C-alpha cells in the first residue's frame, strides 16, 4: 500500500509539472481561429501534391527516354558521321523527328516577344549562346551549299541546327515560365 501511495503521488506530481498549454483544451474561438488557417494548409498540401506529380512525371519521362535509347551513348567524331551519311545519303524530304520538331519550334520562337519584360541576365546569357551557335551553323550551311558540298555534309549541319533550335526552345520556355511566375 505504501508503495502504491508513493506511486500515485509521483504520478500526480508529474501531472502537475506538465506545461499548462499541453493539457488544457482551447476554447471555441481559438478552434475557429485555427480552423481558418486550414484552407492555407490545404493549398500547401495541393502544392506539394502538384510538385510530387511533376517529379513522378519527369522521372517517368527520363526512364522512358533512357529505355528507348536516348540515354547514354558513346560520342562519335563528326568525320565518322559524315562518312556514314555519305554511304547512305538521306532523301531530301526525309527530315528526322528532331528536324521536324525544330521547324515547329522555330515557328513558336518567331511568335515570342524578343525578350521578357524583365530580363534575368543568367537565362538571357543561355539564350544568346544558343542563338549565336545557330547563326554560326547557318553561316556554315551557306558556305557548304555555295561550295556544292555533298548532301550528307549538309545533313550533319542541319541535324546540329535542329538540336540547337530545340534546346533554344527549352531555354526560352524556361525563361517564359520564370517570367510568368513573377
Amino acid at each position: 500500500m505504501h508503495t502504491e501511495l508513493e506511486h500515485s503521488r509521483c504520478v500526480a506530481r508529474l501531472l502537475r509539472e506538465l506545461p499548462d498549454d499541453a493539457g488544457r483544451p482551447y476554447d471555441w474561438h481559438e478552434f475557429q481561429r485555427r480552423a481558418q488557417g486550414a484552407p492555407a494548409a490545404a493549398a500547401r498540401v495541393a502544392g506539394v501534391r502538384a510538385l510530387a506529380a511533376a517529379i513522378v512525371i519527369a522521372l517517368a519521362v527520363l526512364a522512358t527516354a533512357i529505355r528507348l535509347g536516348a540515354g547514354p551513348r558513346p560520342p562519335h567524331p563528326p568525320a565518322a558521321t559524315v562518312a556514314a551519311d555519305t554511304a547512305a545519303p538521306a532523301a531530301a524530304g526525309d527530315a528526322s523527328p528532331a528536324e521536324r520538331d525544330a521547324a515547329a519550334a522555330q515557328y513558336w520562337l518567331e511568335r515570342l516577344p524578343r525578350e521578357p519584360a524583365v530580363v534575368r541576365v543568367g537565362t538571357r546569357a543561355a539564350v544568346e549562346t544558343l542563338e549565336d551557335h545557330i547563326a554560326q551553323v547557318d553561316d556554315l550551311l551557306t558556305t557548304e551549299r555555295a561550295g556544292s558540298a555533298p548532301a550528307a555534309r549538309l545533313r550533319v549541319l542541319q541535324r546540329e541546327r535542329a538540336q540547337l533550335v530545340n534546346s533554344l526552345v527549352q531555354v526560352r520556355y524556361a525563361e517564359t515560365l520564370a517570367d510568368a511566375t513573377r
Partner: protein
Amino acid sequence: MSRCPLILTWSLVLMAGAAAVSCRPTIALADPPAAKDSADRAADEAKLDEQLEAARKQLDAAARQVAELTAQLSRPVIESFTDWDMDGMHGRAIIGVQLEATTGGQGARVREVSPGGPAAEAGIRTGDVIVAVNGTEVKGENPARQVMRLMRGVKPDSKVSVRVLHDGTSHDFTVVARAAPGYFFAEFPNFSPGLMPEAHGPLLLHGSVMDMELATLTPQLGRYFGSDKGVLVVRAPADGALKLEDGDVILAIDGRQPESGSHATRILASYQPGEKLTLRIVRMHKTLDVETTLPARAAHKHVATGESHLHRVVPMPPLPQVMPLPQVAPLPPVAPLPPVPGADKTMALRDQA
C-alpha cells in the same frame, strides 16, 4: 558526350517549373483570414517568396546547363566544318542567315533566318532575296558565295547595309553583325582531366551578375527614373558586383548604349571576367560614371587554341538541388473529451481490485 545529361537537366527544368507554379496557387488560395495574425501571414508569404525565388534560380541554372551542354555537343561538328585559316579562332562577322541561289540568278535567297540573330532583329525574313551588301550589288554566278565574300570584309559589331527584294519590292535594312562564337579553353583546378572547353561569349558571365534583372525603359518608366533612354536595373547583383543598385538606369557601358536588357547582357558578355569597365548610370536622377570590374571566376586560366584534339569529356557539374518540399502547417489539435462523471471512482476501484 552523352545526351542523357540534357534529358536529366530538362527534367529538372520541369520540376523547378512545377515548383515555381505550385507556389503561386498557394499564395492565391491562402485567403487572408480575418483573425489570422498579420505577422504570421507576412512570414508565410516571405517564406513562399523565398521558395519561389529558389525555384526561379533552379530554372535559371537548368536553362543555363541545357545551353552549355548543347553548345558543347555541337562544338566538334562546328569545328570540323570551320575553316580555321580563313575564319580564325575568334569568329568572323555573321548576320544569321542561310542563303541559297535564286532560280532567276539575281541575288541570294534567304532560305532560313537564325532565330534571335542579327538579320531577324533587323527584320529580314525567310524568302527575301539579298541583292546588295554595303552598296555592292550581288549578281552573277553563285550569289550566296558573293555575299559570304562581302561579309569577310565586315568587322563584328559593325553595321551592314543590306538591300533585299521582298515580293518584288526593294527594302533596305541595317544589320549589326555579330562575331561567330570562337573557342576558348579554361583550366579548372577542380576538374580532372584538367582542360575544359568553355564557351566564348554570354556563358562567360557568372556569379551574382547572373541574378541581375534588367528591364528596357518605357517612356513612363523613364520619366519616373529620370531618363528617357537606357536599361533599368530591376534587381542589382546581391553582393554589390558591378557597383550597381536597384533602380539604377544603365545609360552606357564603356560608351556603348544598351537598347534593351538583352543588348546589355550581350555587351557585358563581350568582356572577359576580371576586365574593367565604366558604367554611365542614372541614380536618384543624377548621372554618374562608375568604374567597376566584371567579376572574375575563381582561379582559372584561358588558353586560346583552335586545336580540336584538346577536347576532353567534361565531368558533369553537380546538378542544382531540387527545392525542398514546402512545410505543411500542422493541423489544429483535437480538443480532449470532457471527463466522464464517476470515472475516477471506477478507476480507483479497478486499481484496488
